[in-house]
Structures are given as structure tokens and as C-alpha cells.
């Protein structure tokens, strides 16, 4: 049974988080960490707020020297991702691939 609040007010902001929409998916986005440049495009376009951005340190050759640099990385939250593919379409470096869900 659901709790009935006065006037159908819902006093639990963001309670939709308990509804996991990841089960809707038939295809899933897979991020190639080597290609991801941390541009946040996929984050901005995701209709389901299902992409979180994390900081990481990568090694990169700059001017003949290998340096450690900070770069953001897109991580898919599969609890909520509905598999729409917008992130893969918007990714400017084609770092996200849509693959079929497999059991």
C-alpha cells in the first residue's frame, strides 16, 4: 500500500530514484575509456540523468614526454539508462558504442 499524504502532496523530493528504469533497455551504451575526452556532452544530453562524470588521471604523451594529466570520464549508470542512444549519437569522438543487452 502507498502512503496517502494530504492533498496528494508528495513530500519526498527525487523519490523517482527508487524506480530503476534500467530494465527498459534493449541496447546499452559502452564507453571506451581510451577514447573518452571528458567533454560532458553525453552528460548534458542524457534525458535520464544516467551519466555520471568522474575525475581520473591518465598518461598522455605531450611534446615527446609522457605526462599524467587529469581528465573527466563519463560513466553510465545502468540502473537508470534506458538505452536510447543519444549519448552515442552526440559523442564527438565516437567513444560510446551501443551494444545489445545479453543475459
Amino acid at each position, binding site marked *: 500500500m*502507498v502512503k496517502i499524504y494530504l492533498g*496528494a502532496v508528495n513530500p519526498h*523530493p527525487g523519490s523517482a530514484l527508487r524506480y530503476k528504469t534500467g530494465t527498459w533497455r534493449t541496447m546499452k551504451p559502452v564507453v571506451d575509456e581510451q577514447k573518452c575526452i571528458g567533454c560532458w556532452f553525453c552528460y548534458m544530453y542524457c534525458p535520464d540523468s544516467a551519466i555520471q562524470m568522474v575525475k581520473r588521471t591518465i598518461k598522455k604523451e605531450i611534446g615527446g614526454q609522457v605526462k599524467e594529466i587529469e581528465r573527466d570520464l563519463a560513466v553510465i549508470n545502468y540502473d537508470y539508462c534506458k538505452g536510447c542512444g543519444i549519448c552515442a549519437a552526440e559523442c564527438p569522438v565516437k567513444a560510446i558504442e551501443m551494444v545489445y543487452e545479453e543475459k
Partner: protein
Amino acid sequence: MEMKEIIRGNMATALAAKMARVDVVPAFPITPSTLFPEKISEYIANGELDAEMILVESEHSAISAAIGASAAGARVATATASQGLALMHEVLFIASAMRLPIVMAIGNRALSGPINIWADHSDTMAERDTGWMQFYAENNQEAFDLMLMAFRIAEDRRVLLPAMVGLDAFTLTHTMEPVDYPSQEEVDDFLPPYQPPYTLDVNRPMTFGSFATPESYMEFKWSHTRALEESPPVIDEIFEEYKKRFGREYKRVTGYMTEDADVIIVAMGSVSGTLREAVRQMRKDGIRVGAVKITTFRPFPFKEIVELCGGAKIVAIAERAISPGFAGPLFGEIAGAFINQPSRPLISDFIIGLGGRDVTLKDFREIASTALKEAEEGRVEPLVKWININPEEAPPGGE
């Protein structure tokens, strides 16, 4: 300290809203209620009232803005009538379902068509099922008192429902009558500031007006309905407190000479005074007649009606509305009040004063004698009688 002014009905309701220190008044002009927003804007302009007035572009927006303001924590009042109330229709259900204690004065006026600006109760009767409380004033004093009490009742945590206060078009809205009113300090003491249980507040975000599936809709409807059903003791308590503070007595239903009456005539609104005078005169002629005035139509006073009218041979309902294809709406309510009683009077329906047609002492005499004849014959046929009408001028099929 009581003060007295000779004012119109609309001024009485506006005065009550001002003394209630309303925060927001969204309003749209409509005859016969326009004087309400005019008075409110005057109060704001001359510094007597600190409120936001929203000059909306329709009654639909008036009640919509009222909901927004009330949900944001404001005390809200507005006024309308007839077509304006009908235009609000869909939103009225939402205001009550959201449990927002908006108070609205209604200049009870006929619904079109044909267009007509005079008194009857067809506008508020059409909003019977919207989940609002409905009060009907007999005179301007009642309009002031009921309007003021409506805030207190509506905002009571045990109730939290919107309320309409009906005052008959022109007969009350535009007629000057003496009205006693308390001092601002006394009103402030009677009516503390509105303390909403939930508000639109960035520090405590909440969702108002959710989408409810079959899994929860019935429970919401049930809890809303229960609140209305359980409001009578609260209303009685506040009526009683009002009497103690200000000396004027209110009841949800008031009987007059009902105890030994063979016929009891039930009415609402401004005709109630005429009805009592008619009863007084008929009593002098030896006719055992009584009167009942319904002040609170929603919640409907089932028990009290049965108590007041149960001993009569016949109950004659004199109502200013018609539900075409049925009877007057009040007939259904009163018949419903009696249906499970082991013994009950006959119940007869009379349609009076639609579109502002005068209701006179003679009309009530006719109602009483017709009803007494029905009681003698032991049957009510036809069920619905239109009083003071020229039927030969109005053929059902047209000419």
C-alpha cells in the same frame, strides 16, 4: 467592540476578507460580484489592506492563480458568480483535492441561457460535487459572518478544504443593509495567520498535484470525502465560538416553528426571511406550518434535517435551482436524508424564483396549501411544481 455600517452584500464579504488579512486576491469582474474585487483594490490602494491583487484574464485563471498562491502559503480569497463559477468548474475539483483553504464569495446568479444576471442557486448547485464546503447567507450580516468564519473553518487542520459563501444576486450583493462587525483586534484573535501543513518552499521541496494511478486515486478521494464528512463538528464548534465572541448564532440548519408543524418548508438564502414571515402569517390563520433554513449545504446536514422535519406530514422544498430531467437538486438531498428512516414524511418539490423572479409571501402560502393537500391525499403528484410560472406561455415543444 462592535461597529456598524450600512453596506451592500459584496462590501460585507470584501470587508470580511480585508479583516481576515487576505494575502492574495486573484479576481475577474462578473455581475453581481464585481464590487468585491473593486472594494479589495480600494482597500489596497488606500493602505487598509496589505495584499497582492492579481487582475486575471478569466475566472479560470482566477481560481488557478488562487491555487498557486494558496499552495505557496498565502491566505487567498476571491469572488465570482454564475458563468464565472462555471468557467472555474474543472479547477474547483483540483483546489479541494489539493486541500487548499481558498474562500470564495459567490453572488448566486442564474446560469445562461438565456443569459440572466439575477438571483438563483443554479450556479453553486452545479458545483455541488466539487468537494468544496458551501454556505448560504440569508442577509448581509450573515454574508459577513459566514465569510469570516469560512476562513477559520477552511484552514482548520481537521478540515483543510475550500469554501464558497453564497449570497443571492442583487437581493443581497447590491442591497444596503446594516452590518455589525467586530474590531480588527477581535478578528485577529479569532482568526490567527494561516499555517499551511505543506507549502511550495525551496527549503523543503515537495511535489503538488501528482499524477495518481488506480493504485492511489481512490484513497485520495476517500480521504478528501472523509474530511468533508467529518467537518460538521468543527463547523459547529467554530459557529459556537463565534457566538460566544460576537453574539451572533449560526447553525448549519435552522428550524422555525417546526415542532408541531404538519408542513415544513425548506429553503436557502435570501428567501428564508420571507419564508419565516409567511409562516408567521399562516400560523395566525391556524395553518400548522414551519420553516427550515439550510445554511450549510456542503457538508449536507442529513441528521439535522431528519431531526427537524421528521415529525411533519410533508416536507415542501422551495428551491431556486432545477436539475432538468430530475427535480430540484435539494430534493435529492432531502429525500436521501430520509430514505432509510423507518417512518418519514412525504417530500414534495417546488421550484421558485429562477433567474431572479420574485418570491413572495403568496408563493409560500401556495406551497403550503399545495403540500397540505398532497399530505391529505397521501401522494405527491406531480413531484415537481413550478411556482409563479405561466406554463401556457412556454410549450415544451416550441411554437
